[in-house]
């Protein structure tokens, strides 16, 4: 049984809120599948809004930090737009507000121990919490040592700070600075190179840089044309003029099938950030 809902467009704020909190909660709480074509149709409607999206997780000073940092990570230059023009800050914001930022589905059960590197991520923080705490601490560090918040520093100062973060050389309290940098760089690359429906890679900035024309279905006649350019229009899952339409429903959350038998059960439970199906709630750190 498909469930559908109207997708609210927050036009008053100059953006399309495909993933409003109420909708997200609804998605997380129940079995739902909205085909992407339906979702994209409902979201985009051909009326592409390209202005800055309203903040969804990041506060304005956090957004300033992100815009300054990603401008150094992928700068605008003669090769084309950088991360800011490509909307990577919009992408990161949406990701942090959504299941990724909230660590949905991630094992967050205590106790937490920092083990060896090989044992992987062991911090008691969601990605959104890493950003919030990390940005705050980096700005404190910059003010203390350089007299300004990161966003107000000169580009070469910013590069130096980013390298020091990357090398684990700045004390960010509970968060190793290399973790913070790693997450920021990972999400920046994602936003630059993911399908534009997620808000980044605006006007195919990332894909045009590298020469990837977007997901296509059939290269049967092209795969053995060795060394030849492939000149076709750039295309997204949202078509040739995609708009941001961040969605978090999962096709694996569906129930149907001919001749199938199902046990009695409620709709699929997609866990909220730190609550398990059995109702146990784990502390999310000292924030």
């Amino acid at each position, binding site marked *: 049984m498909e469930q559908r809902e109207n997708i609210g467009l927050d036009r008053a704020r100059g953006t399309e809120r495909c993933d409003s909190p109420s909708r997200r909660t609804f998605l997380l709480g129940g079995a739902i599948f909205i085909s992407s074509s339906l979702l994209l149709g409902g979201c985009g409607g051909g009326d592409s809004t390209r202005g800055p999206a309203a903040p969804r997780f990041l506060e304005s000073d956090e957004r300033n930090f992100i815009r300054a940092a990603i401008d150094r990570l992928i700068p605008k230059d003669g090769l084309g737009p950088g991360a800011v023009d490509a909307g990577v800050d919009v992408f990161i914001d949406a990701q942090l507000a959504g299941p990724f930022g909230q660590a949905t589905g991630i094992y967050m059960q205590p106790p937490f121990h920092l083990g060896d590197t090989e044992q992987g991520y062991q911090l008691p923080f969601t990605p959104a919490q890493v950003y919030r705490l990390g940005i705050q601490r980096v700005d404190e560090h910059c003010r203390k040592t350089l007299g300004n918040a990161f966003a107000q520093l000169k580009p070469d100062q910013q590069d130096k700070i980013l390298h020091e973060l990357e090398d684990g050389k700045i004390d960010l309290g509970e968060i190793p600075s290399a973790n913070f940098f790693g997450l920021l760089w990972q999400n920046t690359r994602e936003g630059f190179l993911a399908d534009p429906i997620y808000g980044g890679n605006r006007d195919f900035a990332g894909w045009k840089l590298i020469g990837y024309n977007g997901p296509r279905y059939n290269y049967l006649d092209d*795969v053995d044309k060795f060394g030849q350019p492939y000149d076709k229009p750039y295309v997204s899952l949202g078509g040739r003029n995609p708009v941001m339409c961040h969605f978090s429903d999962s096709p694996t959350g569906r129930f149907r099938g001919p001749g199938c038998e199902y046990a009695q059960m409620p709709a699929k439970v997609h866990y909220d950030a730190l609550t398990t199906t059995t109702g146990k709630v784990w502390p999310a750190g000292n924030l």
Partner: protein
Amino acid sequence: MAKKLPEVDVVLVGFGWTASVIAQELTDAGASVLALERGGWRDTVPDFSVTHIQDELRYAVRKQIFEETQRSTLSFRNRPDQLALPMRELGSFLPAAGVGGAGVHWNGQNWRFLPTDFLLRSHNEQRYGKKAIPADMTIQDWGITYEQLEPYYDKWEYLCGISGKAGNIGGKIQPGGNPFEGPRQREYPLPPLKRSAATVLFDKAAREVGLHPFPAPAANTSKPYLNPLGVQMGQCTFCGYCEWFGCANYSKASPQSTILPVLLKKDNFRFRTHCSVVRVLTDSAGKRATGVVYVDPGGKEYIQPAQMVVLCAFAHHNVHLLLVSKIGTPYDPQSQTGVVGRNYAYQVSSSVNVTCKERLNPFMGAGALGQVVDDFNGDNFDHTGKGFIGGGYIALWNTGGRPILQEYLPKGTPKWGAGWKKALHEDYLYSTHMQCHGGMMSYRNNYLDLDPTWTDDYGNPLLRLTFDFYDNEHAMSKFLTDRATQIAKAIPNRGINPKPRKGHYSIIPYQTTHNTGGAAMGNDPRISFVNPFLQSWDVPNLWVMGSTVFPQNPGYNPTGTVGALAFWAADAMKRYIKNPQPLVQP
């Protein structure tokens, strides 16, 4: 209070590849079969449609097609004297959740193991002497031979419509195929896939350095294919979204594209989704499985009685179920007794990036579109003086050019900033990489048991993985990576970047989802949990499928052998149903 349900003949834990094979075979034999799947239902239409499946961020990066660690994970350490910590995020390997299992999101790289792989200990002892095998290396023979398994490999390959070129038919070496493979009874069902620019360059370079490249056997159809069950598959169109995605085109073999259209029409087959099996039940003597307990997403428990229980879940989960159900003797590395959890192994992978002079269009690809050399796999070469046994293949897989994760830049490329941007601009269309896909021996201290601290969503202790690479693996991997680098140098290039596997095993970077062992098969119940027919020595109406039964992991992707073993075990189960006795007396 658990609700008791009506008994079925056979209950399958999981509904991926092996469950689909077993269900198809046993329902044909008249049994009533029920599969319990912890994930959801999904099918080619609409779940894998091109309107949304070619989404790298959602599936490959955010991993929406895999299991959630919150629900099921393990703890991990390299050595027994460390504190194991939970694997909070997926990384090194990516188990599936959902109907079709990992058969939905695999690449389709489909192999047979070498005849000597099945006789690993005895063959190596005979050729190199007992001293060639270190004391803590617990490798063993499988209890079956390649020749016994050959008809079942054949059945699997024709089910899946494998595209390839035979290298050895009935002992006669075939030009263009893999000259090292074991003898097969006939040609592959489909010819090899078309080649891409990168695979042609690899082929030429490998020949130049004196090796024997051949087209990789692919569960991606090179032509339309009607399989023996009457299920129609479509021709692969090289869209480049196999690995970590479902196939929109009925071109990649999966349960959905090869078996389910037939199986789901049968009256004597049922499946239930979102049912997590948490226990296998046994009688008071522990000699007979009486069914399973499963939990629905609301936390309600059900008892599903059955005449036979078959564990068809992912390798880890089968072992976890045995341990929490207290079936079999848990392995103890101190005393080296017990079998459940013993001989966990994996894959030792490394790679070499090549930035070619020729434009490659890497995004035109398929999961198993590749050229391979098998000259350094298994015992295909003389290991005397090499300091290791075993090996692996070197392949150039052109799986796709997905921009976020498939970045293969030259050595020295800046990690970010204008320099990174410039390199990506100049090199994306020209870059590819070779994979060294090494086997992994089993060791005394590489094992699975239960974690004393962390629990899963159902209150069960997490599985605990203790695992590391040893000297044999490091030496083998270096050898393979050096050989791959030689091939790379023979390709006209603007830069190469060898990425050897060094140091301890890490749970973070993706390597392979080829996790093996923990309930090995074999002839000796002291070192195997199932007999050569995959039937438990202790509980004869309990069977274990999948790579869980591998005593160690050869240098190939496991699915071909997993499929062949499922058909092999299904034949044994049919005999068992007629005469329910242990098929082998210990």
